[in-house]
């Protein structure tokens, strides 16, 4: 047990932080712990968590995916356009858009792994290109409302549980199996720790890298469709918030932003922390500008406390002093 704690110290820390934050929030805004509020918190966290799933894989592998906002947004808008508010087209629209997200991920991955483009540049470029394509496609006009089935998936309930929470749970299980119980996970951690050592050990480094971006494209596109159901329609800019939150959730969850460590179970806690935080801050009665400042500062602080970089630096400073 103590070995488990030592190995997963940062993940445990993330959950402990989440509980503290929950109690503090309850103090400032009574009623926050009510069943209905918890339910809506989990629903909002699920969107962050699903986008951050792919981001977790990419970051553990030593990369970063900045294309999630417009992969998400593109999927949302194209789905709304193709379905025209009808459920039936979803049968082919959903697989098509998931494939589309995976394809964008494939382009990102091939650019990074085969052509050596730095991940920041590669994914930033696909993000901007997608943004341009969607603007051309829609001409800026609003889209039809979301099909009822998608709305059910994002706001519906089964036996009192939000459907999306169940989807998130299933995805968490899959991600955990991939990271902890599959050869792919072992290859991924090796790749993120040292690409050279991984290559010299026979790890299929290019394939592993590409796969992480494909997963990220898939989860971003999936989240885009679900988010359309949540807001009732798709609109331009709906993915923008998820760039920062998806990366922050991974970092708060204890992953090193440089790769090689972390786990999706940590990211889940990170997504919950971020969502609870957005619930806490309005209760403090601050202006919206001040709210953003506090939000950013708190995330910076949380990530710093949790991150290994900081822990290593702290250790170094202590050694200097002694």
């Amino acid at each position: 047990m103590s070995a488990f704690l030592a190995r997963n110290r940062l993940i445990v820390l993330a959950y402990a932080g989440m509980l503290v934050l929950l109690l503090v929030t309850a103090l400032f805004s009574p009623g926050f712990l009510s069943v209905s509020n918890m339910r809506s918190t989990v629903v909002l966290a699920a969107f962050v968590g699903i986008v951050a799933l792919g981001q977790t894989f990419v970051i553990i592998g030593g990369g970063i995916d900045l294309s999630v906002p417009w992969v998400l947004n593109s999927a949302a808008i194209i789905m709304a356009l193709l379905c025209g508010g009808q459920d039936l087209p979803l049968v082919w629209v959903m697989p098509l858009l998931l494939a589309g997200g995976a394809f964008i991920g494939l382009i990102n991955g091939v650019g990074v792994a085969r052509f050596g483009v730095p991940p920041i540049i590669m994914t930033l470029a696909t993000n901007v290109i997608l943004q341009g394509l969607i603007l051309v496609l829609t001409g800026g006009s609003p889209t039809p409302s979301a099909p009822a089935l998608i709305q059910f998936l994002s706001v519906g309930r089964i036996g009192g549980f939000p459907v999306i929470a169940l989807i998130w749970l299933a995805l968490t299980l899959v991600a955990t199996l991939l990271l902890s119980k599959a050869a792919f996970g072992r290859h991924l951690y090796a790749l993120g720790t040292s690409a050279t050592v991984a290559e010299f050990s026979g790890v299929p480094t290019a394939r592993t890298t590409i796969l992480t971006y494909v997963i990220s494209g898939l989860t971003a596109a999936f989240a885009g469709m679900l988010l359309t159901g949540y807001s009732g329609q798709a609109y331009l800019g709906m993915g923008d918030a998820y760039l920062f939150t998806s990366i922050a959730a991974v970092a708060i969850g204890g992953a090193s932003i440089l790769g090689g460590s972390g786990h999706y179970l940590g990211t889940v806690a990170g997504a919950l922390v971020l969502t609870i935080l957005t619930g806490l801050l309005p209760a403090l009665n601050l202006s919206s500008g001040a709210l953003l400042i506090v939000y950013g500062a708190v995330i910076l602080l949380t990530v710093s406390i949790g991150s290994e970089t900081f822990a290593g630096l702290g250790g170094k400073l202590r050694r200097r002093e002694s």
Partner: protein
Amino acid sequence: MDLVTVKGLSKRYGGIVALSEATFSACAGEVHALLGENGAGKSTFIQILSGAVQHDGGSILVDGQDYRPANPDAAQALGIAAVFQELSLIPDLSVEQNIWFRHEPRTLLRTVNRAEMRRKTLALLDKYSFPALRPDQELRRLTLAERQIVEIAKGLAKDPRILILDEATSALPAREAEWLLKLTRQLATEGRLVIFISHRMAEVRAIADRLTIFRNGSTVAAHEANAVSDNEIVTQMIGRHLDRLYPERVSTATDLIALRVSNLSSGSRLTGVDFALREGEVLGVGGLQGHGQRELFQALFGATRATGAIELWGKPTSIGNPRQALTGKDGIALVPEDRRGQGLLLTKSVRENLTLSVIRRFTENGLLSRQKEAALVKEMVDFLRIKAGTPEQLAGTLSGGNQQKVIFGKMLLTQARVLLLYDPTRGVDVGTKGEIFQLMRDLAAKGYAILFHSSDMPELVHVADRVLVMRNGRIAATLEGDRISEAGILRAAMLESEAA
């Protein structure tokens, strides 16, 4: 009077005693060797002397004054500089910028005085007859050996009274190592104290006036160098009698060709190499450093692009990357040159490192079986006698010799029976060296075919069945039987006219 006197020095890290009751004394104008296996306390001792860590107990007197530097800068201010094995240079800066880093000569406006820096660099390189180094060359373009030489220049730039050289020759090819030994003597003649760590007995013999032996965190003995035999030294180092460093050379080579290489070329570094390696054979690869040995090993492993034909166990093969090289019974495995940069995931466990190349073998229906993995890890840890607390210990916290064993284990778990060993004993303590040579012999007897490069020539002479000598990217000579000698290798490596 002694320049340095150390009494009862101790240092703990948490519950681990790194150094206890160490004593040491040395005078100005002396070359003083520190000997001991990895983990014996030498490193901790010199880290304390150089100000990198602070001691918990005991005393150090330098010139009769109590000495307790807070950091390396303070130690340098008192005239004590160290050249460490782990290189401290910055790849993006030039040779001279690295040498004078943070001590750059300044103009009146406090900007860097480049002309003065160039002048001082050339003067320094000239005074100590440094091998060809261009002051403006970017460091990242230099080989490991050249970087080591820059590191030495950086240490000398501090004009220290006491210079500590930690395994400084281990990265150097024969000629440069020779130069360093001369340099060491020159420094002693100038009245400096040189504290010298090396795992090569011949070097210690060649230059040390006195030597101090460490074992298990304490000093066990100090000797006048000419008053003690090699055997006594080794016995005191390892605390038991080591029969001999090199195992008996019983050739187990069969007629079966395991690896045949024809006209292998890669850029300008490797031009038309042909040779055959037989089953059960240990084939040495020697020559001066930088003559294509690295490119040969990397090309065979698929880590560098190359043209030419490679046959493994009689079958033509194309090796595009290390993954292909490691696949299957006809595979080819590499223990790479750079243990920390190419061989090991330092922040991962011994277990994860050992099974990294074969992790797919432990999956059932796509899911890993931890039991299967643990069983094989235990088998390999026992077989190689890897000294780790548990298989979960991080590889980066092991001693150099044990790290090397983990890399051997990782490669042995693949089914490849052609092994490429690139300088596998570099920076490894003498006890583990012996184990590695014995392991090579045992593997050869089991039918493995081994290609073995060492920067330490006696190793090639005593371990290899045949030796290929490389010069300018070609095989200059193949030495067999009595012709395998240090002189023979050097002659073939340096003389154009030597007939193959």
